């Protein structure tokens, strides 16, 4: 079904899955059928996931998956073919060119044909080798590390259940294009996570934890897993006594996790140029305009090694770099891929990411952060707040990019009264309008860092890193 190099070891970096001669001939034939651009991108994934439930192995799943996507631009429209049957791709060239032309033929006169911004053409390979290749980690090691989390998370009679998970992946990508691009790159991601459920006669509560990023076993070894599990246990027990959140417009302090989710949802998504071009972003037409407080500077940086959203090359073959989306409150850039870069006359900035080999690239975030400010710590941020909320840990968020409204939820929270943290709160969520709340950010601590790893859904799911400093918002809708 697939072409595969023979004789390569399971942890080899030299394996090549695409037959260069055959595939380059196929790309050439696409041009002869009338395409202006064609590419074949393959991704081979070696994955492992392990789950421990109450200290017992629930499942361990090793996997080898491979997929490739043929993407063809003809008459200014895209035709795409995705398959696990990689060797069959040359047979799909003509029909995919035909598909693209059929889409182009239906383009309304008011729409412009799709064109791609120029990018440098490379023939090379880049491997972000982990210090400890995660593919060499045996099951016993993974189980032992997960058991560390379990033991410390379970150390109280009120804890009724602990589940811990491990996931790792080695991602190998090959990209060949009709422009002569021939790039191969690889990197790894590793993560541990868990959920603690507690009950004390009343309703159950739960708390989630995650640690991981781009890298191999060394990432997990660098984490104090007993503390990770112990902190989750303590948080879950605290939630048992937590009260329902007040509702209304209140001053809010968000920890690093929530600051990251906030900036991902409220700003990052509306900055995705494919949404802007589709008319589905509240930031349409606002490049160069002041949209936030002077203290707000936001970057998206796939080169931040260790971040869960890091990658060396984007899925159109462009070297990654840091992108500054907001500088001192001014919107300075969109996240874009080649199509939107041309559409807006911007420099391509390597924002093209696909979920895997079977999906075409969309404009996506990577590691998105608010940069640090002037405050020394949370005490300084809180001292002027008479009545507000300190929210910590993320349960995720969502945005309506067109309307510019967003929501994110905290794992736990506290009331702030007269500058002091007081009552624990549960199930706190925060919502607001992007263009309003960026102006309401009025305090940031100095220490910006990436927080827990996360996942972002936009039809396709990709790993992302988010973070920043501890942040104060003058007034947010808390519920």
């Amino acid at each position: 079904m697939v072409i595969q190099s023979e004789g390569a070891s399971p942890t080899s970096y030299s394996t090549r899955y695409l037959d260069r001669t055959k595939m380059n001939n196929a790309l050439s034939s696409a041009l002869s059928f009338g395409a202006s651009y064609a590419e074949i991108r393959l991704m081979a994934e070696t994955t492992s996931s392990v789950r421990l439930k109450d200290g017992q192995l629930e499942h361990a799943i090793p996997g080898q998956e491979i997929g490739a996507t043929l993407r063809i631009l003809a008459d200014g429209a895209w035709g795409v073919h995705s398959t696990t049957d990689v060797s069959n791709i040359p047979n799909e060239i003509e029909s995919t060119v035909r598909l693209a032309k059929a889409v182009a033929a239906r383009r309304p006169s008011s729409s412009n044909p799709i064109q791609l911004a120029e990018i440098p053409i490379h023939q090379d390979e880049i491997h972000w080798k982990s210090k400890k290749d995660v593919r060499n980690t045996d099951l016993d090691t993974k189980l032992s590390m997960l058991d560390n989390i379990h033991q410390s998370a379970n150390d109280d009679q009120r804890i009724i259940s602990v589940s811990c998970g491990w996931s790792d992946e080695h991602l190998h990508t090959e990209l060949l294009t009709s422009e002569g691009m021939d790039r191969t790159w690889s990197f790894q991601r590793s993560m541990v996570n868990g959920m603690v459920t507690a009950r004390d006669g009343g309703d159950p509560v739960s708390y989630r934890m995650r640690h991981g990023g781009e890298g191999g076993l060394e990432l997990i070894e660098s984490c104090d897993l007993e503390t990770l599990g112990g902190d989750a246990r303590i948080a879950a027990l605290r939630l048992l006594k937590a009260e329902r959140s007040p509702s209304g417009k209140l001053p809010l302090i968000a920890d690093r996790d929530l600051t990251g989710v906030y900036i991902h949802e409220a700003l990052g998504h509306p900055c995705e140029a494919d949404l802007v071009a589709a008319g589905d972003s509240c930031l349409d037409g606002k490049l160069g305009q002041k949209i936030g407080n002077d203290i707000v500077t936001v970057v998206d940086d796939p080169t931040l090694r260790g971040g869960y959203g890091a990658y060396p090359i984007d899925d159109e073959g462009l070297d990654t770099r840091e992108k500054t989306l907001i500088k001192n409150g001014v919107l300075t850039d969109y996240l874009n891929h080649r199509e939107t870069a041309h559409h807006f006359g911007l420099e391509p900035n390597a924002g093209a990411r696909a979920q895997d080999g079977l999906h075409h690239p969309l404009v996506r975030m990577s590691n998105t952060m608010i940069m640090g400010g002037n405050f020394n710590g949370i005490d300084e941020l809180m001292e002027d707040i008479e009545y507000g909320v300190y929210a910590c840990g993320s349960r995720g968020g969502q945005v309506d990019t067109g309307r510019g409204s967003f929501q994110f939820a905290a794992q736990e929270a506290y009331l702030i009264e007269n500058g002091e943290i007081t009552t624990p709160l549960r199930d706190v969520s925060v919502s607001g309008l992007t263009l309003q709340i960026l102006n309401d950010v009025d305090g940031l601590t100095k220490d910006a860092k990436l927080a827990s790893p996360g996942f972002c859904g936009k039809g396709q799911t990709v790993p992302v890193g988010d973070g920043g400093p501890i942040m104060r918002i003058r007034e947010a809708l808390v519920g």
Partner: protein
Amino acid sequence: MIPEDAIERLLDGCKEISKECELQHISEWEIVGSQGYGRSLDIEAGRISLASGGGEGGFGVRILENGRYGYAHLVDVSGATHAVSQALSIAKASPSIPGFSLPSSQKTSPVDGMLDDAILKLSPDDLLTQGDDIISEVASLDERAVVIGGGIGIGAEASVMLSSQGIEASGISTSHGLGVQVSIDVDDQMTSSWESSSSRKLMKGIPGCVSTAVEWAQKTRNPIEIQSDAVDTPVVMTSQGISSLFSNIIRPSILGERMVRGESYWSGKLNEVVLDNHLTMMDDRRMEGGFGSGSRDGEGVPTSCQTIIENGTLRKMLWSSRDAAKNVSEGRIDSATSTGSASRGSHMSPPVTGCGDVHLLTSKAPMSLDEMIETMGTGFVVHSVMGAHTANPTSGDFSVTSSTVLRIEDGEILGPIKQAGVSGNLFKALSKDVSLGTSSTRNGVSSTGTNHLSDILFSQGMRINPA
């Protein structure tokens, strides 16, 4: 769209892997193979931006040795030796589950409506024409309205299961789905609405969700200002609004393992009243054309319709054969057997207990949306919510946001409000003073099932926090 020999190819692959299981002297094994084929198009900014096609699939192998189980997945059967060895080594590290055996072959009958030849015959041009028709329909309903996002997809999936216990099953199912994000962006005001529809059969013409999307983009324009702090109030949630919360909170709570481990809000409440006493909840895995339905579940066990909650009383929980055996052997429950509720996300996932096609029904006379609004008197209608995935599935607490909210006063729609927080506890809100709407809509389509819910009037348990 699907090769005529798709099933034969998959069966050959499964047999190849089964030979490897025999060679490695594995006593019990179960192999699944699936191959999906599809066509789709994306719509952006009022035009079709991309069309695609393709196929993907692979194999999953579950083995059992002395009650210990292991799993591995692969794309190419040439990797069978490695995959089976990996599954075996994992089994050796797994705890033994006394009494756990892979399901034996049992007689089943097919479920109707899973395959529509019209989908198999649909050409790429036919799909593009449907896309054009939808874009035109939106413009004809309101010249200001544009489809700014969404798409249409058709798919066919061939699947095979082969096991050492004598199961050899295969089938082909089809699907047709569409989703549209319609926006009206004029006079410095943008409103939008996302709606979707899906079917195992070809949806001919323009599905009703397209006009609903236009309608909600229109309805939410020119929001009114209301002077209100957060208020506990009656709320009507449309079927779309409630479905995502239902998926995140109610569906996990009826899984056997969560119940017996105390992880469900309903743990320890078997045979107690947990919902308003006119409500019945069923998981019907034999629903004609159901997305969570089929003649066998993910382990090959024949499916059935399970009544989980009957007239408000919790009667049952859902089990796969493995979870049932495991929790009995661990003493968490005296007896449990498979309810035919094993689900698989894909060949990459081992079977786990899951819900299929879940229905919430009432024995009272259902109400139309107008009747609900009249009954409510003063309150809100919430159509869609953001952040349902942030709900707490254990406690049932949620706090989400909606930009499609209508203010109701004296039984009349006063107008939309721009944004509001919606919070509460779904278990408690469904426990009393609930009324259901007249017709249910399929919502929340996924590889493991769907909800069939009507609009719901909650007379208590909901808080609205206007922005």
